[in-house]
């Protein structure tokens, strides 16, 4: 007999079915009080669905939830919060035109006395207090839309903590932030744990799991696989539990013959954002760009792709100077950009098929019409190649799991057959199996003679995949390292701006 008090949460026999998808099949999940419990599994395994049930967003088809030993029914996130459960969602949902403080206190704004007028001052002070206690450096009065994605994520984290919940669910909180913020978050988690708060932590980064979790539960295809104590399990065993097979090689890097320069950037400058960016990329080369969040990496590639403008500098493609004023020009020059923020790239209400073909429609045109047979053929090939988990081509992309959405985005760009492929955090939120798959694909593209620029905040990925690494700090390139000379330490030094 386990004493009742050991578990804060017991979910038993939870099943949930969506039209055409069995997301969860009789899953058990128990969390001990005051522990950090990792929940892992491949993309589409059902992690977010299980957590949304726990947060009252979905009602399970069957199964019970016991919280602190008592059975509870959750009908809405409001119910969950009242019971002491709060959640950081995988998909950020900030209200862009409101301030940080307004976002945090949404739905529970402090009022002036009894009149329904919001006490702005108190709200701002409370937010400032909250941020100070968490050592997060964000102005409560800043507009949400002006924050970087990393800072938005920090606001979400602060918001979830501000409910003083006993159980906090974190669904991939680190997928949008860099090493610095991750270690900050871990410090926050440790403090919470000391106060007796329990945490459910979802991540595809196994390093993090081993660093922070006490126990880990694995789901696969909606089934419960097992729960293990973190001290008693190895990385390999965990991966095997997740994917049901062994994964031999994490970074399937193969040296490709490096050819002539395809893309050259000279003195690219956008005042206040980045300065004097100079680099070349050659055929067959993978150029990694490392740096902390806010170093200006995304802004540089967005300028190259014509998504935003720059003040000075030139771009050369195959030795010819080009003017790229919009993504249309970029695509004409055979550049593809897979953006870092999944949501800004996807057509959420449209089907998987339409999402995949949207950047390459011209290649399926027959007379005035789109050749449906050809489209299906191309899409099915991509779905197979990238192992996209979807009940069919016509599934609405909104209903895919986060990682599979990312793969849909990659598929879209592969179909434009780019010569220069820019990937901004290409494996964010992608499971180990699929990650290896995408890495293999990047390697293959390089071998086919494409030039690849890969931004990543994950150092093992940068080190494992790149032939050459640029490091940026506060809008400038502070270091350039060849594969053989690069290691975590020298990259981090450059990234922090320590040049000596």
């Amino acid at each position, binding site marked *: 007999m386990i004493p009742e008090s050991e578990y804060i949460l017991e979910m038993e*026999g939870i*099943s949930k*079915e*969506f*039209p*055409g998808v069995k997301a969860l099949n*009789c899953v058990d999940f128990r969390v001990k009080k005051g522990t950090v419990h990792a929940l892992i599994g491949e993309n589409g395994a059902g992690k977010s669905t299980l957590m949304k049930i726990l947060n009252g967003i979905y009602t399970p*088809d*069957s199964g019970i939830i016991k919280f602190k030993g008592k059975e509870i029914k959750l009908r809405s996130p409001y119910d969950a919060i009242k019971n002491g459960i709060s959640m950081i969602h995988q998909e950020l949902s900030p209200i862009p035109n409101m301030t940080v403080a307004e976002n945090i206190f949404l739905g529970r704004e402090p009022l002036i006395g009894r009149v329904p007028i919001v006490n702005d001052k108190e709200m701002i002070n409370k937010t400032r207090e909250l941020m100070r206690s968490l050592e997060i450096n964000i102005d409560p009065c800043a507009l949400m839309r002006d924050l970087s994605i990393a800072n938005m994520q920090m606001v979400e984290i602060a918001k979830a903590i501000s409910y003083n919940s006993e159980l906090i669910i974190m669904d991939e909180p680190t997928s949008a932030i860099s090493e610095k913020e991750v270690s900050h978050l871990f410090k926050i988690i440790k403090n919470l744990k000391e106060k007796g708060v329990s945490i459910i932590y979802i991540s595809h980064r196994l390093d993090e799991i081993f660093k922070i979790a006490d126990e880990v539960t694995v789901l696969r295809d909606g089934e419960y696989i097992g729960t293990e104590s973190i001290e008693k399990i190895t990385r390999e065993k965990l991966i095997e539990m997740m994917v049901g097979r062994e994964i031999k090689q994490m970074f399937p890097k193969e040296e490709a013959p490096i050819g002539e320069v395809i893309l050259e950037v000279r003195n690219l400058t956008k005042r206040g954002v980045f300065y004097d960016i100079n680099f070349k990329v050659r055929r067959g080369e993978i150029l990694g760009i490392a740096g902390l969040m806010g170093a200006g990496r995304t802004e540089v590639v967005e300028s190259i*792709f014509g*998504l935003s403008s720059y003040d000075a500098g030139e771009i050369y493609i195959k030795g010819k100077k080009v003017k790229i004023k*919009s*993504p*249309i020009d*970029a*695509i004409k020059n055979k550049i593809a*950009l897979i*953006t870092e923020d999944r*949501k*800004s*790239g*996807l*057509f*959420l*209400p*449209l089907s998987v098929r*339409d999402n995949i*073909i*949207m*950047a390459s*429609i*011209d290649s399926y*045109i027959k007379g*005035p*019409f*789109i050749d*449906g047979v050809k489209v299906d053929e191309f899409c099915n090939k991509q779905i197979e190649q990238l192992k996209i988990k979807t009940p069919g081509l016509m599934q609405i992309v909104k209903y895919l799991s986060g990682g599979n959405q990312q793969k849909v985005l990659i598929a*879209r760009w592969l179909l*434009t057959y780019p010569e220069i492929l820019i990937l901004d955090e290409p494996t964010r939120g992608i499971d180990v199996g699929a990650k290896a798959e995408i890495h293999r694909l990047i390697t293959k593209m390089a071998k086919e003679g494409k030039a690849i620029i890969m931004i990543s905040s994950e150092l093992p990925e940068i080190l494992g995949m790149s032939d050459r690494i640029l490091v940026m700090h506060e809008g400038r390139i502070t270091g350039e390292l060849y594969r053989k000379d690069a290691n975590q330490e020298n990259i981090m030094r450059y990234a922090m701006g320590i040049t000596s």
Partner: protein
Amino acid sequence: MMEKDVLSETQKGVKSRVKLASNIQRYGMVLVFFLMVTIITILSPRFLDPRNLLNVVRQISIISIVGFGVTMVIITTGIDLSSGSVIALVSVVTASLAHPNQYPLIIPILVGLLVGGITGLINGTLIAIGKLPAFIATLGMMITARGLALIYSDGRPITNFSESFNFLGQGYLFGVPFPIYVLALTALISHIILKHTKFGKYVYAIGGNEQAAIISGIDVVKYKILVYTYAGIMTAIAGILLTSRLSAGQPTAGVGYELDAIAAAVIGGTSLNGGIGTIPGTILGALIMGTLNNGLDLLHVSAYWQQVVKGFIIVGAVLMDKQRRI
């Protein structure tokens, strides 16, 4: 063991329920429509008389044709409030060119389409290049076009048309009113455009996520202008049919048609948030409204009460539909 069996039983139950739910979701409005037809038929069997049925379809043809353009506009997250006034402007211009022995039939038709197309082009340009909210741009067009129609006709109806022009709205071909052929043709063309051409895909893309459309290399400005132009041309077709049907170019024609067209689209499942909508859905929406009008007439409900009932049923139907979607 016992427990397992019980569980799989409930799981089966869940499965069939899920399936039913997804079917209802897809065909919810079809059910609403048949429910309405059944009730009206029981109360007034005359409804099913073929002549009455053709009449219903003829009556909805004008709103439906306007609705096809409006559907595309709404899919891009836009709106078009100018349709009713553009109908009036097209009506008076066309009428003035359709007198007997004046021009060949093609001239009033082409000029009418041109007028509609230009209004749409202006709407689209203001929205896509001028970055005006669609609501404001088309509201401006709504007021301006009505004014122009009044100026052009001096506020009076323009009558006396050639035989062939009268045929467009009043004639029969093989026992079926001519406007129904136009309805079928415009529906088919619009549906094919939306589902099977690049233009159609881009319409959904722009409404699904404009930023993503830009990143994907779609010329959002161009396609937005095209959508509003297409809507203007559809409105012009409706305007020409109406003019012929009324035997008059009316500067006061088409008041409120824009809202009926929007209602048809939304009842038919087009989402005001963009990215979702179909032509068959819009026809269904128009059919629901047309059947309602006809049924209330047959049942001799007073014109005042008809309005109230219509309002309730439109909101109720969409509410039911939404409820099911959650």
